[in-house]
Every structure is written in structure tokens, then in C-alpha cells.
């Protein structure tokens, strides 16, 4: 029983050989890709392993504090970013092996010519509660 974040980056980092940006796919290929994602989430729901998901808009910015009485400094929007988070999914599974198995499945989503995109997914454990029996 552990929660994991599956982090999906806009450009599979590092980019796979033969990677084509989505706007150069056929409309049918885009539909098939989105359908794969939807089906994947549905399977997780059905398996009782789904916690949540969200897609993120690409146009964001960096913000930081700039000292007393001054407005925060902003940087962006990003023109060209190598590593931009596109979305995330949180799963609740029995252990790390299952999290890796599911991430592998999600990475097999079809892309150009219906071939798996082999996109890298970042898998990060969420912190749980400290266990009661410790010594």
C-alpha cells in the first residue's frame, strides 16, 4: 500500500530516436493516443488503484520572492523548454514493482504510425505515515 506519482513530461526526456511532435501525427493517431490514456485510467479505476490525475497547461512561469516591499520576480513564459511537465497521475498500489509495471504500460501509448512512443515517465513515491512499530 503505497502511493506513487507518475509524471509525464512534454518531451520524453531524453528524447527517443525518431520522436515526432504530436502536431505532426495524423488526427487518427492523436485520437488513438488520447484513447489509450483514457483506457489506462479506466483500467486503474477498475482495479481500485486510481487516486487522481491532472493535465497541466504548458504556458506557465517561474516566480520568486524579490525582497521586502517589492513585487515577486517572474520569468517566462518559456519559449523552448526541454523538460516541461504535461500532467500527472497518482496511483495507490501494493508496492514499487506494480508502480513500475504500470508506468511501463503508460509509456507504451501509441504515437506516430501507431507505434509505442517509449516516453520516459518519472515515478516518484509519495511520503506515507510513519509506521507505529519502529524498534
Amino acid at each position, binding site marked *: 500500500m503505497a502511493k506513487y506519482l507518475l509524471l509525464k513530461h512534454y518531451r520524453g526526456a531524453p528524447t527517443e530516436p525518431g520522436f515526432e511532435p504530436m502536431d505532426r501525427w495524423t488526427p487518427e493517431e492523436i485520437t488513438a493516443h488520447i484513447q489509450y490514456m483514457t483506457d489506462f485510467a479506466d483500467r486503474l479505476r477498475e482495479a481500485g488503484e486510481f487516486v487522481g490525475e491532472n493535465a497541466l497547461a504548458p504556458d506557465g512561469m517561474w516566480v520568486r520572492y524579490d525582497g521586502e516591499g517589492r513585487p515577486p520576480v517572474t520569468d517566462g513564459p518559456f519559449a523552448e523548454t526541454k523538460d516541461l511537465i504535461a500532467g500527472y497521475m497518482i496511483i495507490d498500489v501494493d508496492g514499487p514493482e506494480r508502480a513500475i509495471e504500470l508506468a511501463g504500460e503508460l509509456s507504451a501509448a501509441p504515437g506516430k504510425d501507431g507505434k509505442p512512443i517509449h516516453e520516459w515517465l518519472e515515478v516518484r513515491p509519495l*511520503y506515507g505515515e*510513519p509506521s*507505529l512499530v519502529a524498534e
Partner: protein
Amino acid sequence: MPLDEALVRSLVPGVLGVLVRRGADFAAAEDAVQEALVEVVRVWPADPPRDPTGWLVTVAWRRFLDATRSEAARRRREERVEEEPAPGPVPEADETLQLYFLCAHPSLSPSSAVALTLRAVGGLTTRQIAEAYLVPEATMAQRISRAKRTIAGARLDRPGDVGTVLRVLYLVFNEGYSGDVDLVAEAIRLCRQLRAALDHPEVAGLLALMLLHAARRPARTAPDGSLVPLAAQDRSRWDTTAIAEGVQILQTALSRDRLGEYQVQAAIAALHADARSAAETDWVQIVEWYDELVRLTGSPVVRLNRVVAVAESDGPRAGLAALAELAPGLPRYAAVAAYLHERDGDPATAARLYAEAARSATSLPERDHLTREAARLRAAQLT
């Protein structure tokens, strides 16, 4: 009259057992009992029944028949069920026990077994279980219905392995979040109920273990939410009633001379509970119990915990020597190593190891605690 929820839920396994004995299949009977519990909340506060169990059996059975009737495809089963002579509505201890075994069935994954046990034996609603484990209610509902499908063919009349049941209860106790439903209290309640149905020293051992650890709960967290390690806990805040009960249950279990891992873990917890201050802890005896636990489980995690006890009993050098025999990849290895190096008078190495341990912690309070330990040692070196 306010509803005694724990009392109501204690009736759940018995009522479910009666329905199954009358011929209802487990999955449908379990749904019917949950629906009856909804009625309890609606009706009992204003109009409490004289015979709560009988009331629950009647309502749950009616719900079961309604559900069966509403599905034309199941009509044949309904006829078969109604033809069978209805046994009396008196729950039997054996049935409660069989439910524990069924819900901890080896074909279920740990998370499924936990969820099913909390619902079918514990009488918690799907929503309560979902909230306790921080997942959406729909997800928990799917997990439970899948678990029911997995065990659909399993028979209810065979004795199972006590060990699997105890592992499920231990998981509920040890790995729950602290939300509205107190899973620690629920695990203790379920373990008590199991002990009433099954006379087994390891069931008693687990109950003792739970009571002894739960007793320290008020002292293990500071007001700001940070973790307080055992040695630094204010022992006057330990629950002495729970400790006394745990020790008494443990002693009775140990006297039967059928040792098991939960009794041994409880014995270690009892020795900690027995010390008026950390300095008065009987580490020599604790090491002996750890030797026993290593023999029983062979677990590397147990060996690592034993290292700490060895260091307390024979000094940090002995602890470091014992640590050298273990694999550095073990969870909490770096934290143990850090502690031993600090005790051995090497704060620089200890600080580095505490920082390393913080990076591999599995909970936020644990990470923050280890980070503070590293910071404390580094600050001391600067002065």
C-alpha cells in the same frame, strides 16, 4: 440516544455469518449487511431495538432478498435459497472466525485483504475506508468488489492460516493514516474480537503488541507534529492501562510455551514499557529476544533492529561490528549507522549518514526528524 458505533460494528461478522449460513453468497450478503447498517443509523437513535442482532439479521436478510428478486436472472437461486430451512438467527463464533480467514484469503493482495476485512468484518463503510487510506471512494469500492470476485469460489467452512489474518490486522495497525477513522483503535478492536473467537497464543501476542505500542502514541508526536524518538519520550504520557493489559495478555500467552514472532515483538515492547526511563531499559534481555526473533523470522529488518539493541547493551563498537554484517541497502540502514557513529564519538560521519538517511525516509515526519539530527550534529561541530 447516541449510536454506539463500535457496538453495532461488533455485530457485523455474526450477522453476515447467519446470512451466509442461510444460503446467501458472501458478496451479496455483505452488501445486504452494509445496507442494514445504513438503516441502523436512521432508525436506532430514536428507536433502539431490544434484540440488536435479531433486528440486523431481519433487515439484512430482507435487503438480500430484495436485491436477489430485483435481478430476474437470479430468480432460480432465490427459489433455492427460500426453500432452505432458515437456521436460527444466532451468530456462531466459528462463523466470525471463518470471515476473518476469508477476508485475509491468500489469493488477495495485501491492500485488498485490508479493505475487505475492514468492511466485511469491521463493518466500516466504503467511504470511511477510502478516507482512511486517502483514495477516492470509487477506487475503494472497486478494490472491494474485485476482492469479493477474487474469493467468490473460496469456501467459508475451511480453517485458514492464522498467520495471514494476523498480517492483515498488523498492516491495519501499523500502516494507517491518522484520519477520522482511527485505524489503530480499529485494528485493536478486530484483534480483540478475533481473540474471542480463536484461542491462539499468536493472536494474543499481536493484541499485546498493539496495546503496548498504542500506549506510547500520546508521547510519540510533539505538539508541532514532529516525531519524538522512544528515548526522548515523556513516559508519564504513556497509557498505563493499555500497558498493564498488554503485559498481562502477553504473560498468559508466553506461559503456553508456543512462541511466535508477535509474542516476541510484544515482549520487546513490554521491556521498553517496563523501564521508567530510557537509561533503565533492560537491553541485555532485549538482545536475547531479538536473537529469538531472528531465529523465528530470519528477517534482515529484524537483524538491523537487533544491531541497535546490541549497541545499547554492549556499546557502539559492538553495534558497528554487527552492522558490518548486514547489507547497506536495507531500509533505515543509514539511520542506524548514523546513530551508532554518533554514539561512537564520530559526529561528522553521523551527520553525513543522518542526511543520507533523510533522503531515503518514507514519511515526512521521519525525514524531518533525520534532517534535524544531521543539523544538530553539524551545528555542534561549529561551536
